[in-house]
């Protein structure tokens, strides 16, 4: 490691130490997460996913059963450390709801939920790209970015999301290389 990288590391560790809410739980991070505990958060995850991709004139995240997708991917495909980060993120968010409004997130009204999720979104990323990179590497993607990217993925790959929220072309047949965009044209679900 050269000196510059080393100093960057020290600097990052200092900043992350104060900003990462789950760093103190570092030592728990290597044990696998309890799957049933995460499944217990299904309603909470579903609610937040729906806030990210709400039902409009097209289906929303709940219609597409995105919460099930998110939990399955977290449990089966994410490293243990990332699983914890996600789970603690949920706990932190619930705690924040209690601290701010004295009730469960799911019992909060729409504007309270909105401000809670905005708070979470605000804390999701450092404005500094290098810090983001280091933070993601050390601790995994932040809770909110993970939730958001899995919501998008789960929705856009779902039947409701792909065929109604987006445009899905099962067997295109012909390739039309340059065609005028139609009014309200949705983007293609698959590449």
């Amino acid at each position, binding site marked *: 490691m050269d000196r510059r990288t080393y100093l960057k590391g020290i600097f990052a560790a200092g900043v992350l130490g104060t900003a990462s809410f789950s760093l103190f739980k570092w030592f728990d991070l290597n044990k696998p997460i309890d799957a049933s505990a995460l499944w217990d958060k299904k309603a909470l995850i579903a609610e937040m996913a729906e806030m*990210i991709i709400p039902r409009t004139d097209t289906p929303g995240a709940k219609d597409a059963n995105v919460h099930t997708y998110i939990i399955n991917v977290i449990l089966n495909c994410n490293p243990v450390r990332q699983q914890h980060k996600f789970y603690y993120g949920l706990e932190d968010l619930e705690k924040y709801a209690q601290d701010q409004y004295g009730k469960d997130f799911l019992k909060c009204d729409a504007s309270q939920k909105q401000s809670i999720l905005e708070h979470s979104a605000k804390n999701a990323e450092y404005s500094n790209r290098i810090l983001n990179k280091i933070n993601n590497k050390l601790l995994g993607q932040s809770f909110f970015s993970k939730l958001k990217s899995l919501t998008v993925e789960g929705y856009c790959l779902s039947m409701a999301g792909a065929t109604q929220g987006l445009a*899905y072309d099962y067997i295109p047949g012909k*390739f039309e290389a340059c065609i005028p965009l139609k009014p309200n044209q949705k983007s293609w679900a698959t590449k």
Partner: protein
Amino acid sequence: MIYISDKSKKLDTYDAIVIGSGISGGWAAMELCKQGLKTLLLERGRDVKHLQDYPTANLNPWDFKLGFNNTLEDRQRDPVQSNAYTPADKHFYVSDADHPYIQEKPFDWYRGYHVGGRSLTWGRQCYRLSDLDFGANLKDGNGVDWPIRYKDIAPWYAYAEKHIGVSGQKENLSQLPDGEYLPPMELNCIERHLSESIKKNDQHRLLTIARVANLTRGWDSRGPCQNRNLCSRGCPFGGYFSSNSSTIPAAMATGNLVLRPFSIVTEILYDEQKQKAKGVRVIDTITSEVHEFYAKIVFVNASTIATAGILLNSTSSRFPNGFGNGSDQVGHNLMDHHASAGASGAHDQFADQYYKGRRPCGFLIPRYRNLHDHENLGFTRGYNIQGHGERQEWSDKVNGLAGFGKDFKAQLSTPGPWTVWMAGWGECLPYYNNQVTLDHSQKDKWGQPLLKIDFAFEDNEKKMMDDIEATCGEMLEKAGFRDVATFNYHKRGGSTVHEMGTARMGHDPRTSVLNQFNQMHEAKNVFITDGSCMASSASQNPSLTYMALTARASHFAAEELKKGNL
């Protein structure tokens, strides 16, 4: 599947044996069968039948419970293969845990052990090499001179192209000769724009549609391609060429083929008296029994690294260092293209234009470096650029779009700006020290020594990557792209899955393994026509060259056999 219980030598004896059923082995089998030779095609993995063994080919995205994410278990078991596969095509990759190898330096060895091999998952790009490539070693002194020139292989390129069906555009370039093409796929708006800009700014460069083995019209009872872009799952329309969809059925139709899956070739057997190969030794992976099969000629098409392994493992008093290895070149000179460096950018024009369908290929900017002497670029040889243009979709946007809710959803589901991503596929020189050896201290579950791969890119490749970044960035800037970002992914060796060079062709038996007909210098009835025969890597995707060389060698072998020379 066949099982041979009869020990009589007659049933175990064929005119020809082909080891490996991938893209070149399938060709060898077809050509030998068509020449009337009773041919045994050996494949170490399972059978994969065209159409019926493509379990994911018709699935929708929502049929995959975990999307296209691999599980933690997948990644632990298959640390290399899982970088390439997804749940949609995982069944066409080996398990690293079951098929270990040793990485002396980081090297990704992607494999498909089943009938058809990697011809099911290949990138389908079909480019001819030119005399710029065949003459390069002689000219700059790297490696040994190719014993052939373009005129020797040109008719066989045409022969191969006419069989497999290649869509493409003729461009009349000396460094990238034209072939026999079906109608080309089409460039989209942004690609046309980039093409025009390149043409305007540099008379030595042009952008053309990729030349691919995807059928733009029906061909040989297959296709046409339906523009689904799901090729690596196997195509239910036979829209692209693979051993499974084409050469193996054609070989089968002659009545001369015996296909034997689950058969690991451990050795080529040498006949001391006749000074030729007499056959092969095989482990049946179902019964664990060892069989010997005999033939007048043997084609080795196990893939570059595995072919080297078989040769090195076939020792005798005549060949203490490995079969046909008097030159001590077997296993050496391993090459892989580098495809790490490039550039991307976005463009604000054509906001009212889109496309329909998923074209299964991108574009090509043929080689434009070192076409002439004295370019003084600090590196020898060259690269071509491959890339594609598209409008940003949800997967490109998810990380860049702030916020959440209704507006976020609306932005997510509309086409974003046009972008182009492009990268250089670069030539890798043949270095003696880049090599495959056997480690006899470690064995696989069949008791066979593990292959050890020791490979690194050197200074010439690294300098070329810097030049790729610079020229790609420049071409995008000149075409009015914004947010142009150049990159070098520093990918591991093997990542381009173009391994070549471990049993090279050459004039001289002291410095090469094969002659101008891919015939082993030291055992005239053994032919090697997979990537291991390559004396240099050029920068073109190599499969078409393997197919052309295989067809050529197969005809030569059959003629020699008829003449009684083998």
